[in-house]
């Protein structure tokens, strides 16, 4: 399967809930706050001027606490929620201008979604749930069974095809949800807090499975979560939302090393930084340092591994090597400690 070439461009997106949302877009653009809009005018500001470019074939994480608008945002991408203003361009088409029929086609072939509470069809077996998307497209069940079977095996549910969702545990149900989405073979995968309802251990398993799958599939994945660890682990790129506005976006390194404000600082405080920050970010130029005797670390090594390596060899610095073992920089124990 080839990598997805579908990118998602969200531009100046606003969502206001209330009896007359359109009327309040301009005041909000001019800077009216969420509180003022809510308290004095009875409208709720759901999303405020959202701009995100989601690159093709990557995992884009959108993180925020409840009420931050993250679930509202992901529902704009397949237009389960209509925006008040703005544009979302996917494959060169503004999906907000699609007619009802075009939108249905786009949902059938362009996107697949995994839900927080699984949202499986309780009256259908695992197999019939997984083939649901193709059935809606009008593809014969007999034909789609074979492909569906592959996905059921891939998510580790072989032997459960004829069971009903109510007979499965939460983790297994979400595997069905994932298989159902993957079976549609879409370039975009939307995951709305897909793992939030699962136990921590199962959640880690599912994250690993998603990362493995992504290595093969290279889909454009939008992943919603309220868990920073999950965001940092999965996200090639992370957007942090608060009260409907973007507070910061960037890769995990940037968010950990340069949190945009106190709000994010508070989140970041409890995270195991050593696991997510890579030595690339803190290495210094070689400047002709004698590198011969120092230990070597490859680019992309997380700090916690680097620390272990340094203390094992009891040296105060290491040479960072790039492709082919060529030295590209140097990291010192001191700079690692500072970053941690």
């Amino acid at each position, binding site marked *: 399967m080839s990598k997805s070439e579908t990118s998602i461009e969200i531009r100046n997106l606003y969502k206001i809930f209330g009896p007359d949302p359109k009327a309040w877009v301009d005041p909000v653009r001019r800077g009216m706050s969420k509180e003022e809009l809510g308290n004095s005018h009875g409208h709720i500001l759901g999303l405020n001027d959202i701009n995100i470019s989601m690159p093709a074939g990557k995992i884009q994480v959108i993180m925020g606490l409840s009420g931050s608008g993250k679930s509202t945002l992901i529902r704009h991408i397949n237009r389960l929620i209509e925006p008040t203003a703005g544009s979302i361009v996917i494959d060169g088409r503004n999906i907000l201008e699609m007619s009802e029929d075009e939108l249905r086609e*786009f*949902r059938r072939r362009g996107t697949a*979604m995994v839900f927080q509470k699984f*949202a499986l069809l309780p009256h259908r077996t695992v197999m019939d749930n997984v083939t*649901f998307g193709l059935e809606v497209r009008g593809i014969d069940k007999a034909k789609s069974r074979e492909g569906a079977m592959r996905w059921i095996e891939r998510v580790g549910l072989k032997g459960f095809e004829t069971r*009903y969702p109510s007979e499965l545990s939460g983790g297994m149900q979400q595997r069905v949800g994932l298989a159902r989405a993957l079976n549609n073979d879409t370039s975009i995968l939307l995951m709305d807090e897909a793992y939030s309802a699962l136990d921590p251990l199962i959640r880690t398993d599912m994250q690993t499975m998603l990362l493995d799958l992504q290595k093969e599939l290279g889909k454009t994945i939008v992943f919603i979560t309220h868990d920073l660890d999950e965001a940092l682990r999965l996200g090639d790129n992370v957007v942090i939302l608060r009260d409907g506005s973007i507070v910061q976006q960037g890769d995990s390194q940037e968010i950990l090393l340069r949190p945009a404000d106190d709000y994010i600082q508070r989140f970041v405080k409890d995270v195991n930084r050593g696991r997510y920050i890579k030595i690339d970010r803190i290495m210094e130029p070689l400047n002709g340092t004698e590198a011969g005797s120092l230990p070597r670390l490859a680019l992309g090594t997380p700090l916690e591994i680097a620390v272990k390596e340094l203390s094992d060899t009891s040296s105060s610095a290491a040479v960072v090597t790039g492709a082919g073992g060529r030295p590209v920089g140097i990291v010192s124990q001191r700079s690692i400690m500072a970053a941690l």
Partner: protein
Amino acid sequence: MDWLLNFPQLDAGFLLNTKRFIDGSLKALTRGYGQSIEEFFYPLLQVLTFFEQVMIRAPWPLVIIAFAAIAWYAARRWTEVAAVVLTLVLIGLMGLWKETMMTISLVLSATIFSIAVGIPLGIVMNRYKRVGAAMKGVLDVMQTMPPFVYLIPVVMLLGIGRVPGFIAVVVYAVPPIIRLTDLGIRLVDKEVLEAADAFGCSRSQKLWKVQMPLAIPTVMAGINQTIMMALGMVVIASMIGVQGLGLSVLQAINNQYFTQGIFSGFAIVGIAIIFDRISQAYGRRLQQHRGTTHE
């Protein structure tokens, strides 16, 4: 103080004229179109008669086996089957077999017709909110109106017999199935509906692949209520010439035959139990994978 104690009603002459006018028009309608109305309903009469004849003429062991088979299919439990067979045998021993078959035939045909009309109406009620609100008003009236009142226009237009009886029973029994179809569709989990939308279901795909299958347990409860109401109405409908157990009860009242009344009453209870057991057990079996996610 006279005006305080007597309600200031409309002029007596005016009221009289209004009543006369409405009754007169209805009578004129009957006189003018009675023949064609009857002709219109003639096929229905034939169906009802045919159905009744089948039930009466079928050999009794066959009827009992048929009911036992239906009970087994619905419930998959021997206790249910045994209860059904025992009830039918007792009714037969009491000498009420023929009347019971007539009643069952009317109740079943009225129920089938009510389902055929009620489920589509329930879907319409759910989909078009305005129409739904209007229908709700009509259903409220239908359910609170004393059932005897239905009999009057039906009798005026169609006289007495099977067809007017059937119509009165259907009118009385159809509201629950309409309401519960609407309710069942409304109760479908929002998340599941969202998933259906996200996968690009059209309206009709959503209705037939998601909403209706998940509404079925609720619809079954509606069917159960419809059957019970039809059974209740059968006794009243005997006043306009519907034969069967209802007539037997009516005769008992008129002639003060206490025992005949009690026996026929128990036979009706027996049928009610059979229908109730079968439809409830079937509903429960359907519920298995459709209700809440964790039983």
